[in-house]
């Protein structure tokens, strides 16, 4: 299992898996955790921060999405700044080297404990490896109070930015956490890996089809979510035509 970096540059190579990620997000957040606010008739969780500015780290094994998370640079619209500024006591952290971490899917109860354990560790290692590659010093986000101790256990120093707030299904607070690259080795040892977890596929496109991809990606991002599968299919058609 590896964790793939998926962003606007290489997303055309991952269209099916991206859709699978959105479907898994809906399954976990809405069907399992009961976040009714995210419910969508097409069973895909897509929000206003799923834009070309987002980078996804997707754990993939046997061609299947095992887990995922989303990273958005804080100089672009992000959840804490644009949706929940009241979670933060003071100014929302923003700037180079600070990325927001949201929509974390650490596994799926339908898989074995071992698989989920692996996914959980690998995603955290992947965040650190990605942080190293982009010179990210701090991650921010909103953490459910049930998860804080677990994050500390995984080596994060979770610094609260505001007091806990009750929401429909639980209780959460805004946090920032410094990136501690030394933790990469610790986590790798704990899961018995000594190789790099993160895999970033080059875009591998010629200039002409790249323009086409960008255009098409923007289209996918701006269509109503209910027609996404159709748009995706259309996009795949376009891509096929563009490449040949």
């Amino acid at each position: 299992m590896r964790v793939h970096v998926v962003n606007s540059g290489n997303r055309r190579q991952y269209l099916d898996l991206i859709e699978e990620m959105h479907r898994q997000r809906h399954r976990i957040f809405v069907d399992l955790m009961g976040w009714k606010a995210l419910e969508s008739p097409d069973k895909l969780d897509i929000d206003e921060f799923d834009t070309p500015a987002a980078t996804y780290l997707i754990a993939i094994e046997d061609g299947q999405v095992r887990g995922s998370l989303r990273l958005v640079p804080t100089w672009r619209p992000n959840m804490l700044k644009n949706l929940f500024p009241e979670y933060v006591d003071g100014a929302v952290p923003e700037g180079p080297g600070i990325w927001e971490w949201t929509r974390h899917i650490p596994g799926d109860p339908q898989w074995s404990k071992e698989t989920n354990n692996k996914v959980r560790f690998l995603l955290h290692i992947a965040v650190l490896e990605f942080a190293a590659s982009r010179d990210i010093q701090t991650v921010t986000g909103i953490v459910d109070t049930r998860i804080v101790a677990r994050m500390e256990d995984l080596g994060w120093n979770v610094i609260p930015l505001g007091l806990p707030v009750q929401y429909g299904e639980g209780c959460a607070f805004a946090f920032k956490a410094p990136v501690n690259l030394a933790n990469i080795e610790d986590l790798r040892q704990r899961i018995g890996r000594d190789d790099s977890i993160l895999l970033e596929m080059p875009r591998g496109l010629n200039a002409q089809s790249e323009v086409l991809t960008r255009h098409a990606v923007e289209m996918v991002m701006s269509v109503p979510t209910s027609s996404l599968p159709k748009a995706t299919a259309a996009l795949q058609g376009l891509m096929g035509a563009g490449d040949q």
Partner: protein
Amino acid sequence: MADKQATSSDYLAIPDVAEQVFAFVEWAASEDSLTELNDRLDGILHDFNIDNFILLEAFSSRREPRAEFVAGVSNPGWRAHYMDAGLACHDDVMRAGLETTAPITWSGFQSDTIVRSGQRQIFEEAGEFGIRDGAVFPLHELDGSLSMVSMFASDRLPHDVKTLAALHMLAIYYSIAVRRIRGSLKPKVAKPARPVLTARQRECLQWVRAGKSDWEIAKILGLSQHTVVEHLDQARKRLGVRTRTQAVIEAIAAGLIHL
């Protein structure tokens, strides 16, 4: 939520609740003494009329009540009575923690639910130990078990959203610090797979390797013969072998003693 905080006028018993909490969180992250940790939290909580606080393992992963004390500054009389009378099995406030991640105050519980007579009696008995209000902060573990921080007040607790949120955060980071100090948060680096022997056990094995008898080893190391036998038995156990000879071989192979 934000509106509620802004319009509630009398909640700020303490002006910089949040500041104080964040300072505690930052400080607790590197504190290594449980006593210091308890003292500092005790100091903060006194401003909220809270005299006692405990971290307990409330329910097992199979949701059986446990009410096992982990750490804190308890009201000794109340704790003894609670345990002796087996109140954990009848405590609806504690049980309510299974269903929520939000703080539960005793007075909030009394106004929100129909309180069974058994529960009313628990509140009354607590009163006899000087406890008039309290709050529990459920800490749900991923294995399904429930820990909680329970706070006890000599007077009515502040009930505004912000104060409860502040107490909640103190509870979360207190429990994290306690676990780190007690070493039950997993060590960040996995322990090496090879068995670890104490210096004494290695020393004894080294002399066995040199062909010395228990009596001789005892004389050499200035220990009783009984203690030497104990050390060697422990070493055998830790190495997972039956005989001394095997223990010597295993220990050499693992680099614990030299040839």
